[in-house]
């Protein structure tokens, strides 16, 4: 679906009277702060222009002045629906730079946490499609499960939304029995809730009419626009970073990559829905096969020593001071590491010139890259389509604006 396929009329070269409609910055459907200026012919969208950057927080600049470990809280605030993926993705990038190899237990723990947060992310997106199409109840049913995921995160790391989970080299504390119990509990109850949610929506003709052929994008255009993640898979390309370049022992797990056919809203919904089922399968596998081992790699130059050693041993105390002060001397080099975030390929381009802080840290934020296709996707649709397309793309202002 390229621009040549449209007869685009610009407001100036026709005597037809178009109206502009400001969708945002604060509009119930933007779920964040960004603006779409729609050019409308009655209910039909002729053109759109986005204004973003309302919550730009200059993370890339801040990151150049922070020791490596203090950047993790910044990544929390990118895609705040799935902040553990961002945290762990960043830590993986730094570990790659520092040459830290993690053991299987850490990998599996990370996989569990990342899949949990993927579920949390997709769940929000899909239920919000329901909300924007007018059905609030499904959203409420499934949102309880998101709360439960947050309770798991709280049990793991102590925070719910902006988790700051894990440390470079592993985790600050091991999974407690309560965590394992809660995850198992989640797997049971979420299955029920997800079934219920699907029954409410997926074969309901009103919902299908609202979503099928709404906001479509072809595979070629999606690739040209740099789509990744569920949105690209909905267009029919089975690109998944977890499979293409496995990290965190993802190749230990067997899961299918759901794809759609036309890249429309219904495809995106179904792809996310299936990915949630697959994530549950992965979590189950990882939990059943959770290996023994330490929860953090004790690399003395980058990882805080054990607390009891800090309390009692001089050498450990010195290392402790050094690391907290951020005086780890990272090797020179540049590295691009990507993980499969909730919205797609979340990349970290890290340039190190040695020293305590990154010389340059660039986040490849999937939202930012695919949101530019939005005007093309909604052209010729109705206002309702524009809104439901936006929510199905899962545009998250935090990730959009960095």
């Amino acid at each position, binding site marked *: 679906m390229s621009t040549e396929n449209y007869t685009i009329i610009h407001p100036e070269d026709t005597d037809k009277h178009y109206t502009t409609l400001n969708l945002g910055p604060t509009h*119930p459907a933007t779920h964040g702060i960004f603006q779409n200026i729609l050019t409308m012919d009655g*209910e039909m969208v002729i053109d759109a222009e986005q204004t973003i950057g309302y919550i730009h927080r200059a993370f890339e600049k801040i990151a150049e002045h922070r020791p490596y470990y203090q950047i993790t809280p910044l990544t929390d605030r990118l895609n705040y629906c799935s902040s553990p993926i961002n945290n762990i993705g960043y830590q993986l990038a730094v570990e790659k730079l520092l040459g830290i190899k993690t053991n299987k237990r850490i990998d599996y723990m990370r996989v569990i946490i990342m899949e949990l947060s993927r579920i949390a992310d997709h769940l929000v997106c899909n239920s919000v499609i*329901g909300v924007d199409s007018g059905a609030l109840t499904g959203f*409420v*049913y499934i949102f309880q499960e998101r709360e439960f995921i947050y309770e798991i995160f709280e049990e793991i790391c102590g925070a719910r939304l902006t988790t700051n989970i894990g440390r470079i080299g592993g985790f600050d504390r091991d999974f407690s029995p309560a965590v394992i119990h809660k995850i198992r509990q989640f797997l049971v109850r979420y299955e029920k809730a997800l079934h219920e949610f699907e029954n409410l*929506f997926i074969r*309901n003709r*009103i919902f299908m*009419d609202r979503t099928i052929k709404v906001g479509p994008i072809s595979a070629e255009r999606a690739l040209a626009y740099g789509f990744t993640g569920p949105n690209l898979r909905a267009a029919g390309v089975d690109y998944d970073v977890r499979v293409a370049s496995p990290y965190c022992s993802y190749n230990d797990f067997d899961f299918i990559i759901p794809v759609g056919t036309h890249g429309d809203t219904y495809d995106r919904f179904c792809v996310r829905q299936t990915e949630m089922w697959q994530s549950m399968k992965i979590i189950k596998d990882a939990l059943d096969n959770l290996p023994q081992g330490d929860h953090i790699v004790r690399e003395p130059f980058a990882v805080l020593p054990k607390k009891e050693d800090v309390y009692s041993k001089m050498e450990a105390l010195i290392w402790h001071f050094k690391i907290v002060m951020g005086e780890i001397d990272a090797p020179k080099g540049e590295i691009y590491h990507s993980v499969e975030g909730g919205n797609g390929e979340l990349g970290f381009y890290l340039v190190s010139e040695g020293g305590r802080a990154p010389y340059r840290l660039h986040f490849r934020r999937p939202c930012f890259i695919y949101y530019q296709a939005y005007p093309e996707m909604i052209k010729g649709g109705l206002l309702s389509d524009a809104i439901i397309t936006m929510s199905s793309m899962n545009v998250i202002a935090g990730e959009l604006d960095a």
Partner: protein
Amino acid sequence: MLYIIYKLVLITIILLVSLGIAMYATLLERKFAGFLQDRFGPDRAGKWGLLQPVADGVKLFFKEEYMPNTADKFLYILGPSLTMLVALLTSAVIPWGPSIFIAGTEFSLQVADLNVGILYVFAIMSMGVYGIMIGGWASNNKYSLMGAVRASSQMISYELAMGLSIASLIMVMGSVRLNDIVDAQQGWNWNVIYQPVGFLIFFICALAETNRHPFDLPECETELIGGYHTEYSSMKLGFYLFSEYINMFVSSAIISTLYFGGYHFPFIDKLGLSPNVAAIVGLMIFFAKIIGFIMLFMWIRWTLPRFRYDQLMRLGWKILLPLALLNLAITGIVILATQ
């Protein structure tokens, strides 16, 4: 003279009851939604939140009165007033119960026994669109205007199918007086049994006419923010919100009158109660039916996604209208054949 005083008293009572029911319908809606969604709903104002409507009313009264300075002042105020007025007018012809006899005088529980009862209802319903259109237009806001345009086109479209479904009902009944219609439905003779398709069409159209889910496009909050009442605040907004519930109440009353036997209920008719007791029992039955329908309205609202504008039009013109015509034709044929 006594007659006029009685009618005035009756009108006052009906108005107050409509308002009261509408008020508590807001609470019912929130409670019901809460219970459907694994929550409790409002429970802070009074026991089980029973004072919540009062609290809402007080809040709306004390909100800042806001008027966009580009708005047409007169029309801006006229809009909600008209909506409220039209919403209340319909209740005039509904037979609320059998007549009460006091000292040998008959007091009918109906304000006006029009012999064009259904048509009156239909006429007033067709007026409902004015308040929304004028209000939406006068606010001078694009979202409001879009809401108003959506509302008017939706209401006009669904009036047709509604009229046709009423027409086939009239053919079955042979009268347009609501009293005749109710009296013909004693026992199990509910019209819904003879006119199931007509009932379905009428019910869907009633949802559309009252702007309820899944046809709440004029005010759908995720697209048009508030639709036609985006710019309204304070009690003017309250009027709009309130009239929706009054409309719902009246629509439920009409549906139960037309299709569900009004104040009749099987078996209870046969008990042979004295007229006054029968009137009170009938009144209660009628209100039970009304509340049942109000709950059905809400149940639908909290389950379904809403239609898109073009799908709504398609449903109205391409599905409901032919279906209603077919229903009309079949009804006619059956009546001819059985005559």
